[in-house]
């Protein structure tokens, strides 16, 4: 038995013994986010997280010294496979795991890592991201939230917007303005702040599509300690950029519709075609309205082309070629494709697409109409399409400024 085989046996044994029976096969899009007052999408969600965190397996590849699993990539894959075998859900999700944790591991001091990483791994603290401001959207670096330092204490005033799950989070990693007299990128400090204090107020944002996870966050003499500055005073832009790149890839993948499936054979199930058949009827086995049928094919063909391009990108990476800035195309194309798909569904549903709620409309109809409205934000959030096009023009095409 190789080392890997014995590792697999160990993992399998542990999971079979320890994982709550109840959580096997449980599928939840959102996952378990942890935090001080965690929401429990499944009664055993926290228990399952605790069991895994005990071994550091909520963050399998993170260093053991901070409570991580200390696994190498091959081992982590084994763990993943074994979880899949027992249909076990990921024990923990959230911005601690995906964003601030890796950032701390890269930029944090020893003290900062000791302080925050273990809590992230154990899902004790739920994190949110404080980047955008009402007047700093595409031009993030023009942010204004002012942090004033006096000895060890920092006082923060200003406003953040588009804070996802701000109302459910315990701590925020936030970009603050700490110098107004230098080039704007050079006066930004990356700060961790405890949201449980009187100076921090969070208000959920309602979108045109209805409720949303987004919030506005207001700082009125909110306090933080200088020990929670990451990468030094006025060193925040470097950290922010590293994080942003990560976020864009995530979004591209989300809107791509679940990523590439290299080995899939035959025509995949096409929900647009099914909708077309339902609302437009059939004639000789074809969707009766040939103009809409052609539009369905346009979107479907483009969708396939997009998935294949994501696959090609992955295959290139796997083959050891460097990733290029061309990944910007995924964000633009994926989000616009999603909008086109949603608009096409409106057209297919016709008069039944005007509803917000019943009576007279089915839930599938009103849900889709709201999804359409929500999709209009896809080309704005996470870097507008216009900014992405600028990036391609500059970095890929090397067109002059």
């Amino acid at each position, binding site marked *: 038995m190789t080392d890997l085989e014995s590792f697999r046996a160990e993992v399998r044994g542990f999971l079979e013994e320890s994982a709550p029976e109840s959580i096997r096969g449980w599928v939840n899009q959102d996952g378990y986010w942890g935090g001080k007052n965690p929401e429990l999408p499944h009664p055993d969600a926290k228990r399952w997280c605790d069991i895994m965190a005990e071994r550091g397996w909520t963050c399998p590849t993170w260093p053991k010294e901070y409570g991580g699993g200390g696994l190498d990539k091959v081992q982590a894959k084994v763990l993943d496979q074994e979880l899949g075998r027992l249909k076990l859900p990921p024990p923990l999700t959230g911005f601690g795991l995906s964003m601030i944790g890796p950032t701390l591991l890269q930029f944090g001091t020893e003290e900062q890592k000791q302080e925050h990483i273990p809590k992230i791994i154990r899902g004790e603290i739920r994190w949110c991201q404080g980047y955008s401001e009402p007047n700093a959207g*595409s031009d993030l670096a023009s942010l204004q939230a002012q942090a004033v330092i006096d000895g060890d204490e920092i006082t923060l005033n200003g406003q953040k917007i588009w804070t996802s799950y701000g109302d459910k989070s315990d701590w925020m990693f936030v970009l603050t303005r700490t110098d107004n007299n230098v080039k704007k990128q050079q006066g930004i400090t990356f700060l961790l702040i405890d949201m449980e204090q009187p100076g921090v107020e969070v208000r959920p*944002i309602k979108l045109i599509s209805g409720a949303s996870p987004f919030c506005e966050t207001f700082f009125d003499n909110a306090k933080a300690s200088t020990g929670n500055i990451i990468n030094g005073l006025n060193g925040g832009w470097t950290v922010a950029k590293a994080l942003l790149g990560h976020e864009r890839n995530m979004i591209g993948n989300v809107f791509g519709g679940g990523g590439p499936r290299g080995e899939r054979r035959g025509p995949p199930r096409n929900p647009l075609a099914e909708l077309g058949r339902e609302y437009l009827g059939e004639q000789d086995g074809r969707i009766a309205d040939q103009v809409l049928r052609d539009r369905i094919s346009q979107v479907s063909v483009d969708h396939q082309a997009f998935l294949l391009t994501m696959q090609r990108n992955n295959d290139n990476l796997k083959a050891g070629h460097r990733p290029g800035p061309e990944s910007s195309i995924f964000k633009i194309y994926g989000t616009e494709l999603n909008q086109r798909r949603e608009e096409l569904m409106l057209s297919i549903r016709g008069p039944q697409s005007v509803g917000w709620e019943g009576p007279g409309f089915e839930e599938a109809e009103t849900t889709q109409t709201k999804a359409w409205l929500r999709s209009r934000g896809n080309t704005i959030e996470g870097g507008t399409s216009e900014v992405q096009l600028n990036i391609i023009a500059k970095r890929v095409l090397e067109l002059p400024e």
Partner: protein
Amino acid sequence: MALVLDEEQTMLAQTAGAFMRESSPISRFRALRDSSEERGYSLDVYKQMAELGWTAIPFSEADGGMGMGLAGLVIVTEAMGRGLAPEPLIPSIAMAGQALSLAGSADQKSTWLAPAIEGEKVLALAYAERGQRYDLRDIALGATDKDGGYELSGEKTLVLGGQCADAFVVAARTAGKGGDADGITLLLVPADAAGVSTERQQRADCQNSAILKLEGVKLGADAVIGKAGEGHGVLCDVVDRATVALCGEMLGGMNEAFDRTLDYLKERKQFDTVIGTFQALKHRAARMYIELELARSVVMAAARAIDDGADNAKVLVSIAKAKLSDAYALITNEAVQMHGGIGMTDEHDIGFFMKRARGCEMTFGDAAYHRDRFASLSGY
């Protein structure tokens, strides 16, 4: 058919614009949306519109109207579109009122049309049924002969302005089957008749429509508007007129959304510069402007063609609705995109126009439907 406003129309445009700016800012629309009041519009504002003569505009003087035609009506629906005013001018005047004007008996006119023109009664036209798309032959709701009159049972949906209407013009089938042009009869159904009820619908565009439920509603033979079984032609004419009136509303909405976006482009700063300086946005704004200009032309032409009884009136109606549907969607999509994140919030007003654009698109036929109709009318 000159595509220009005459003096009377110019004055109407000025007073309509001023009245709507004064009495129907978007904040009013928002307040109506957020209120739980069943009516969904202001009866007070509607009565003022009637006092201004708006409810009389398209009707002949013989009917007690002002004889200003659709060319006049689109001027006020345009002004209403700018403010997203939910008052039932199109349902009561351009739809049910037109049906009575075109085919109603003297008695029906004096009982229902006259008070509608006065703004004292509000009427609605119920033709759409669940599962129907845009073809006006798809009427299945049956009216059966009963005691020399009719008995009506069934359900109509998306009855514009149907909540709180005083009477309905109902398109029912007295012969044939869904898909036939023949056998459709228009019937006048008072809201207080036994067996009539409505349920207000919640629409994404927050405009007003209702489900009309008819349970064994008994009507006399005098409820028939025009001739029994021959309602399809009247219905088509009425919906054509209503389509043009709606195109007027759409024209107002897209102009308002565009103006707001233009203001935003001139004021919003990113990267230390007003975003209106970015050439990519400028070019897109210029293309929207072109669409706005074309949209105005086709609305004016369609209204005048119907007023003149021109041979190509139906063709022009389809041109107008096809163009306006696409243009309103384009401009409001771009408006939200150019507003960025703030445009996605419910707190900001620009999203209302995007919602309304689609509501209008899916009413009386979308662009593809009207291009198909254009082709058929053009003989290919």
